[in-house]
């Protein structure tokens, strides 16, 4: 069977505004391509998370039944990789780097500042659904330490007093959209 690139599928996806039924239909369609293809579980979960935004229990069970895999195996993979989330995520995921270089250059202080500003802990999402806070162990940008990654933007040599400004820039982005 030819290789189906999950990223291509995900890019074509305009699922955010679909109903749950439509989302399951779309996911089912894609999973039928992955069925019987060895090693396709991670790809399937990637697509599922792109469609649903996260991996709720019913989606994990759906993937398991469509791929004919035990639920516990799918659940195990979904909880093993930090990329996958079982809970809804914010529009912006803030990743504070706590790798060695970032840590010694103040990553920990940045984390405390973000926590304080947003009022959430690691792994949580703000009640307005805007921000999810995560920590990462090195993003490979040690020369720019300490870094904070928000979605695809890498903020370099961040000082803790810049945090409110960085967060504010995304709020402005949202209000501009509206």
């Amino acid at each position, binding site marked *: 069977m030819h290789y189906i690139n999950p990223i291509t599928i995900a890019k074509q996806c305009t699922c955010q505004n679909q109903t749950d039924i439509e989302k399951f239909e779309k996911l089912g369609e894609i999973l039928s391509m992955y069925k019987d293809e060895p090693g396709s579980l991670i790809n399937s979960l990637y697509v599922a998370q792109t469609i649903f935004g996260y991996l709720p229990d019913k989606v994990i*069970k759906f993937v398991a039944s469509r791929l004919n895999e035990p*639920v*516990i195996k799918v*659940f195990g993979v979904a909880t093993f990789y930090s990329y996958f989330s079982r809970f809804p995520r914010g529009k912006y995921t803030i990743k504070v780097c706590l790798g060695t270089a970032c840590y010694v250059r103040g990553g920990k202080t940045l984390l405390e500042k973000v926590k304080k500003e947003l009022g959430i802990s690691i792994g949580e999402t703000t009640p307005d659904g805007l921000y999810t806070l995560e920590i990462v162990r090195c993003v490979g940008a040690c020369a720019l330490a300490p870094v904070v990654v928000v979605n695809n933007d890498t903020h370099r040599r961040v000082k803790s007093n810049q945090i409110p400004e960085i967060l504010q820039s995304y709020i402005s982005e949202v209000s501009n959209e509206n």
Partner: protein
Amino acid sequence: MNVTISIDGINIEVTDSTTILEAALQVGIKIPTLCFMKDLHKEGICRICLVEVAGRPALMPSCVLYATEGMKIITDSPVIRRVRKTTLELILSNHVKDCLNCERSTNCELQELANRFGVDSWRFDEQIENRTIDDTSYSIVRDSGKCILCRRCISACSEMQSVNSIGIISRGSHSMVTSGLDSLADSVCVNCGQCAAVCPVNAIYEKDEIGFVEKALSDPDKFVVVQTAPAIRAALGETQGLPPGTCVTGKMVSALKIMGFKAIFDTNFTADLTILEEGTELLQRLEKAIQFKDPSVKLPMFTSCSPGWVKFLEHNYPDYTDNLSTAKSPQQMMGTIIKTYYSEKKGIPPEKIVVVSIMPCTAKKFEARRPEMTSSGFQDVDFVLTTRQLGKMLDKRGVDFINLPDSSFDDPLGRSTGAADIFASSGGVMEAALRTVYELVTGRELPAEKLHVNGLMDIHGIREVSLTFENCLERYTWLNGVTAIVGAASGLGNARKVMEKIISGEKSYHFIEFMACPGGCISGGGQPRLTDDIVRMKRFNAIKKEDEGKKLRKSHENPSVMDLYTAYLGSPCSDKAHHLLHTHYTKRGLL
């Protein structure tokens, strides 16, 4: 290929598929292990079996290290001892250390190693994350606080049994063995208990009902009777210090009398009864299919004695539940017969009777609580204890088991034939059925040496035997010339293989015996730990000897069973027998 290696200075030649752990045993050195389990689990996770390899900077786990030419191994040194001790201390730092209150105390592999390596203080702070105890299931309890993540249970559940109910979630120090999104009770767990049978600590164990049994025994208003499964007699001795393969039928009955049970019955009796019901049902199905060409008849027929297998089928092959024999398992038949026939015969109201089962099985606890198992008007079997739990009760009661004289089971539900004994071994139910069915149909004894069908009973794998019927009695002339293909499979991994072959059309059978546990009930999830192939074979031979030692070896020769039909049930598969001794199944599916 053969290679020469040196272990602690001793040269030895082994094949290159030999692990250092195995090679060391050949020179008389037992390297300590924790996660390793022969024939089941070899993953090098726990790091207790580490050894030094000349030329390699780090210690290597010997259970997954294969011999190569010229390898020089050291299995004991100050460094190794220190590392093993530290490893144990680290494992213990994530372990709830309430050893004094723990069910497995003195029977715990971790405790034994900690003692052996002199762990005398807690160097590391205890870190127990989110301890969860899942006691939702009727059979199995799961305690994450005791788990050392050795993953033996997962190997048993997924590789041996192909049930895939439990697995590892999350990663690193957050890793946990769980039943996934659902609790054990709501998962695809079939309650076979093979996980509990291999757990080195007390992280997975069977539900404890000893308290309820003791309370009933001391209640003067209750009439507490007990039944013991065929496989108990070949294993109970192990809980009392006797070697595996010691048959203790008579001592067991004496012990149960001391413990205060009012009547001691033998599940063997209802095993004989099962053969008559199930055998008759098979003949009815065959007649409909062969003589009347009725396409609605479900063949092959599957045995229904093993509750782990039954639930496995309900989950994984719900379209095939009609292939299961509708006959209840011997445990459930006994419960029903005690609370109806025996109750009426003795004039004891069924609500006063408490039926306790001693089973080699954890799934029997679930089976007893199936909502449909109430044909007597009451829950047919009240409490189920495993062989291990009876062993514990004997210790608590202070029974001098080894020196007890032999006693016999009580009448009328204590008499049995050799055909019932072999229910304990894989292939035994099939052999017992053939002994009776062949004779009923032809009027002649089954043509097999010592009544053992060649190649049918075994502790391993999948077996298939064919049997041609000729010169049948008048009632069964439609069977003349018919070759019946029967099979036996034990271990749910093997059961799945057989099912896939049936579905694909690669194989066709008339009748198949399925047992959830590898080797059958002799290595059930409730039997004394640990059951390896050597122990399995010893119990298997003990059961075979028990059968061969009996005068009556065919279920239809059991006079008490015949009395039951004459006085109460009428004939096999009569309306009354159907009402009391047969059941139905649930199509559960996977999610």
